[in-house]
């Protein structure tokens, strides 16, 4: 990072600016990521406080919150003292504890915005309120994906060229005065040139642009995201941050012209003192240190009991060799409790967790759909296309969304006819919510009865440079790596379920955030069907057999989709089951039903509006209604409270109650002694689970600036974003309804393998290593034989001793669940 650069390098500055802006794509492609990704090259503690000083974010809970946790015992004294001893020395404990508990601190103002504040201070002009509303409206109209009836008339060019074209032809103008229009039409739209008019001092340009763009980081971030991935808008637009900046500078010049006439002096002539350099080196304050100590104590107070739980084993339980069925789920934290209930209701079954795209990456095209959808983690660009065929789909319409109601005459008719129907519907939605076409439903992602083009007929069967379907060899590779990565290589049950997940909600613009992150924010139904089809192929099994992975002929794979909001499961291609398996499937189905009921009960304890003490069936019915209620801002709580990722055999966690806080990735060190599969797992776990975790973390600690605030006043802008009211900035991040129960702790990644193998594995890729070495994710290695714990820090592993003596046992989980709505500590299920 260059500091105090006197020469203004436009290209470089824009590049850097893009790096810092929020990177959230339009709503339909909502994918969780680290909100402060720009700072990831620093150590976590340094990074967050740098971000806070520079950009004014809150990056931790308040001291009062930490102190409250200490008082209530959630931060444990023993853990706090251990951390103080490690970081400050034994003799300093008292001093620091005093500071942590009683000292009053004041935080200096953030640096961002200090240069631009001079317009108000020295010129008494509120540029933001003169420029923002118009700028936002023009941007939104240009990018609009289908709300307006009258679209931006010129759109095939880049943003700036379109504006120029309109200004050239039209009688009216976006500008109030002549100069800015002349500049635009005359092509004098060089950023430096315009900044020279406005600022006049080259050394301030960079900081000014940061101030300017961060005064509306939502819009700037959206423009930057669309510039980088234009395909994310179905109705594509050419726009760039450069265009936005030029246009905004023109509007600012115009507003100043309008207010003062053309004779005003540039900013540098009027400012009394130069503001603090935005990029000046960050010096940690004592407040930062104290907060940091609190945060660590807060995290390890929880981790410590988890680790103790992992070390404790439930001995004496016989291992059932003959499995009734096996089921694979997504590593998603929401699958954690469902798996526990399946195992409870059928002790002979076995469950696994793996990223929910099940190792098959492709684009998917719905029948009659005009676009492709990517169904794999966001960083991968697939080379395959799978098409849905043979569907007769009827699209239900809802007249309330018709645009005719907004025009004059049809509006006149509609309001007098449909208007009364609306009153009736409103009554209906209040007293008897039901499924409506406005809903985003996971089961509709793909028709159950449709056919998929999974097999590649010949290598030339391509479309738009994508190969249609997979060849037998490609299938075998994928099935093999999936099974080996989760350690399922022997003792196959007659039926292996592969269950993806999705969600259903209504009145929820953030619907994509509730679906499977490993499928780019879509439901995982297609992936589960595809992998099952592959694994059921005779030829694939033959190839696998050659590689030593023998799947009995009687074993069949069945795909399915778990709707995490409604707690329902839909199975696919059941008619392909053999007669024996079909009967087994019926039995299993009832076990799934019981488990889903119980699961919905466990979820309900977090919902204040459902009484957890009701019977499981009653609660389940209420949960289903919730998913179709227009007025329910919390259809489900998604990944809230996530905090752990455990990579290892199920035996590590099977006996533990982890309160749906863990991503569980199955892995058997014996199948993968060199850590080859482990590398892929960790790569995905760090970026996917770490990204989810950090997005929740930052949206929770600063819901106003890093999150989206409460969703209740949100207004949908152009189908790609939400804002408050009509003149507001876009709000990236998560709304408060999604994060309010979340505890801001970083992800604790626990890997069951030998420390030296793990150490070697994480260093294979620098990008993955960065997550661990910079402490954005904590890493603990658990020795598969001795169960010793090793903590990875500063590039080394060292032995970790838990402070928790023992963890509580619980016999009757149901009573425990009914007893509280807060996070429940780790329990041993006996």
């Amino acid at each position: 990072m260059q500091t105090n650069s006197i020469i203004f390098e436009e290209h470089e500055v824009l590049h850097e600016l893009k790096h810092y802006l929020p990177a959230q794509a339009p709503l339909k492609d909502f994918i969780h990521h680290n909100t402060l990704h720009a700072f990831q090259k620093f150590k976590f503690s340094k990074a967050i406080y740098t971000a806070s000083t520079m950009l004014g974010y809150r990056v931790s809970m308040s001291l009062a919150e930490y102190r409250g946790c200490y008082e209530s015992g959630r931060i444990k004294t023993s853990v706090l003292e251990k951390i103080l001893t490690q970081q400050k020395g034994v003799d300093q404990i008292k001093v620091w504890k005093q500071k942590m508990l009683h000292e009053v601190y004041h935080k200096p103002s953030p640096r961002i915005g200090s240069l631009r504040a001079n317009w108000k201070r020295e010129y008494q002009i509120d540029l933001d309120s003169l420029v923002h509303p118009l700028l936002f409206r023009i941007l939104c109209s240009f990018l609009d994906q289908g709300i307006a009836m009258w679209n931006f008339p010129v759109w095939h060019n880049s943003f700036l060229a379109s504006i120029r074209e309109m200004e050239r032809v039209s009688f009216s103008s976006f500008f109030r005065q002549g100069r800015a229009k002349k500049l635009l039409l005359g092509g004098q739209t060089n950023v430096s040139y315009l900044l020279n008019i406005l600022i006049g001092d080259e050394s301030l340009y960079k900081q000014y642009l940061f101030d300017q763009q961060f005064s509306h980081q939502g819009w700037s971030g959206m423009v930057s995201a669309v510039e980088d991935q234009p395909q994310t808008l179905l109705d594509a637009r050419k726009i760039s941050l450069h265009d936005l900046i030029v246009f905004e500078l023109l509007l600012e010049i115009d507003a100043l012209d309008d207010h003062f006439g053309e004779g005003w002096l540039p900013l540098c002539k009027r400012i009394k003192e130069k503001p603090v350099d935005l990029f000046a080196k960050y010096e940690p304050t004592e407040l930062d240190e104290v907060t940091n100590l609190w945060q660590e104590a807060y995290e390890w107070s929880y981790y410590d009991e988890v680790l103790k739980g992992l070390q404790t084993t439930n001995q004496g339980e016989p291992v059932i060799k003959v499995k009734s069925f096996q089921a694979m789920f997504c590593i998603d934290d929401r699958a954690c409790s469902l798996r526990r209930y399946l195992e409870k209701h059928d002790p002979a079954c076995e469950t696994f967790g793996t990223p929910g795209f099940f190792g098959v990456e492709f684009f998917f095209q719905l029948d009659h759909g005009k676009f492709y959808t990517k169904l794999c983690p966001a960083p991968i660009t697939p080379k395959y296309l799978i098409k849905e065929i043979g569907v007769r789909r009827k699209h239900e319409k809802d007249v309330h969304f018709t645009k005719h109601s907004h025009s004059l005459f049809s509006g006149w008719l509609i309001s007098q006819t449909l208007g009364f129907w609306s009153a009736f519907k409103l009554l209906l939605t209040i007293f008897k919510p039901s499924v409506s076409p406005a809903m985003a439903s996971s089961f509709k992602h793909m028709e159950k009865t449709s056919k998929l083009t999974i097999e590649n007929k010949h290598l030339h069967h391509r479309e738009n440079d994508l190969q249609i379907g997979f060849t037998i060899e490609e299938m075998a590779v994928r099935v093999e790596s999936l099974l080996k990565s989760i350690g399922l290589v022997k003792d196959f049950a007659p039926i292996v379920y592969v269950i993806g997940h999705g969600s259903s909600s209504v009145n929820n613009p953030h619907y994509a955030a509730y679906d499977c992150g490993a499928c780019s924010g879509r439901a995982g139904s297609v992936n589960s069907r595809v992998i099952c089809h592959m694994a059921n192929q005779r030829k694939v099994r033959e190839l696998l057999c050659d590689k030593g992975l023998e799947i009995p002929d009687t074993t069949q794979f069945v795909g399915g989709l778990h709707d995490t909001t409604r707690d329902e499961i839909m199975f696919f291609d059941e008619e392909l089951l053999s007669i024996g398996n079909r009967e087994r499937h019926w039995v299993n189905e009832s076990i799934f039903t019981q488990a889903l009921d119980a699961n919905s009960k466990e979820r309900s304890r977090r919902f204040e509006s459902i009484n957890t003490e009701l019977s499981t069936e009653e609660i389940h019915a209420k949960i289903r209604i919730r998913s179709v209620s227009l007025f329910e801002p919390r259809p489900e709580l998604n990944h809230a409270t996530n905090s752990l990722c455990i990579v290892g055999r199920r035996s590590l966690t099977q006996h533990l109650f982890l309160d749906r806080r863990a991503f569980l990735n199955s892995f058997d060190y014996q199948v993968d002694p060199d850590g080859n599969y482990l590398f892929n797992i960790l790569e995905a776990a760090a970026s996917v689970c770490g990204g989810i975790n950090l997005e929740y973390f930052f949206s929770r600690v600063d819901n106003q600036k890093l999150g989206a605030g409460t969703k209740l006043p949100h207004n949908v802008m152009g189908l790609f974003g939400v804002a408050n009211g009509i003149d507001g900035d876009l709000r990236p991040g998560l709304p408060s309804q999604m994060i309010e129960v979340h505890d801001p702790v970083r992800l604790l990644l626990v890997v069951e393998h030998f420390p030296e193998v793990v150490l070697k594995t994480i260093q294979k890729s620098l990008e993955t290593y960065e997550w661990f070495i910079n402490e954005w994710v904590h890493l603990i290695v658990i020795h598969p034989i001795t169960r010793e714990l090793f903590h990875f820090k500063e590039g080394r592993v060292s032995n970790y001793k838990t402070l928790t003596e023992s963890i509580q046992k619980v016999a009757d989980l149901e009573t425990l669940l009914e007893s509280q709505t807060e996070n429940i500590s780790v329990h041993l299920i006996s």
Partner: protein
Amino acid sequence: MVTIYSRYYLHRETGYKRFFNTILFFYLGYNITILSGNLETLFIGWELLGISSFLLIAFYRDRYLPVKNAVKVFSIYRIGDVGLILAMWMSHHLFQENITFLKLSNYELVHSHLQSHSWIGIFISLMILISAAAKSAQLPFSTWLPRAMEGPTPSSAIFYGSLSVHMGVFILLRTFPFWEHQLSVRILIGLLGLTTSLVATGIARVQSSVKSQIAYSSIAQIGIIFIEVAAGLEYLALFHFAGNAFLRTYQLLVSPSVVSYQIREQFYNFIPRQQTKEDSWPKKLEYSLYILCLKEWNLDSFMYKYLWNPVKWAGKKLGYLTTPKVLTFFIPAYILGTLLFYFEDLVTPSIHELLPIVFSIIGLMMVLKSFTERIHARLSWILVILNHFWVALSISFNEHFEFTHTLLYLSGISVFGLFGYLILRRLKTLEGSIDLDQFRGYSYKHPKLALAFLIACLGVSGFPITPTFVGEDLIFTHIHEDQILLAFLTSLSFIIDGLAIIRIYARVFLGPHVKSVYEMAYRSS
């Protein structure tokens, strides 16, 4: 229905209780308005609606935009209020009583009164039209409606989808018998409705955010309802009224669903747009019109330029007033005025006639200064209160009436004025600075003081919780029908007075809390 809806929707939201109290307050006002038998009672309800709208728009009081927009909407409502006050004043003189709506439908009665004072009839109708247009977001006031969509979606749905925005239509229907036979007024209403519906449709067509689209198309429909009312199609208007209200409410409530719905539609039915490049006349017109619509026909800046800037300009001219100056000059002057009142006989008739005007101008100066005061909250507050005293003095001079009327009028103001002053002083000692140059957001730290001050504000602004309200009405009855200037000055000072009060409240207590930069949202969000 919407309230039941919001019970779940707002569940766990901070300010849950505040929301429902405001909603109940709103219903109270609404019912009074609907069920009122005469203009006076209707006015009480009308005021309640105004203030509860303000509170609901500024529901998220820690953010900048909701508060700014709430003040904006309130100021437009205030214009409507004054239209109503003036209409009430005139109709008093016309009928010599508080006329009920029932009597208004008595054709002979109305007709006989109007016969002799036809210009008064037109004046009253115009005032009613102004207040109806302000409330129903007709031209030139339209821009407030989309900006009012800052509260939680259900409250936007109630207010701006249905109940509140149709109030203008309601009052037109209610007073229909009165202006039924004034052809010019009917044509005017029709034309206003027509232009509004055309302009608003244009604006609605270019809106790319859901709520503003619904808002503008609703305005356009209300424009049509105005035409229907003007044409005398009462039942059609009523039918249309109800249908439109239901439709927009529902559309607003389901507005968040639009993303999943439209994206899916687009997935199946997308056809890329074709574009031709040419410089034809229609193109030129199209672009020009598009830009105009996108800029909302400059209505917002128009309001600023012609309404608020002159007020601000006038206030700035009074910049030399400071608290000591106010106290040292105006209090003696006031005492002088009061003395004059007692020794009236000494004053020559010609001066006597001028005095009310002079006093009300001084009063107006007070509020103007108060409204534009950038720094001192307490000065601004004192000026607001002094204004009432000047008004009282001026009216006392105008016509002799019982002293109790003035007392009635001033009693509420003095008590609440003192109360408000004490609160401001307390806050000043607690926080140091309560200057008015920016939103300070102290409700974040002192919610109780904020509530107390709000009550003081309501008291001082002549809200129907104090005797002042009755007094205010009485005061107006003492202005003669030929004293347009006095009526104008007094009503102007009432408008600005209300605005100044709300401004003090908003600046001191609402907006992002200045001392917790890290916990507040961005200004632009």
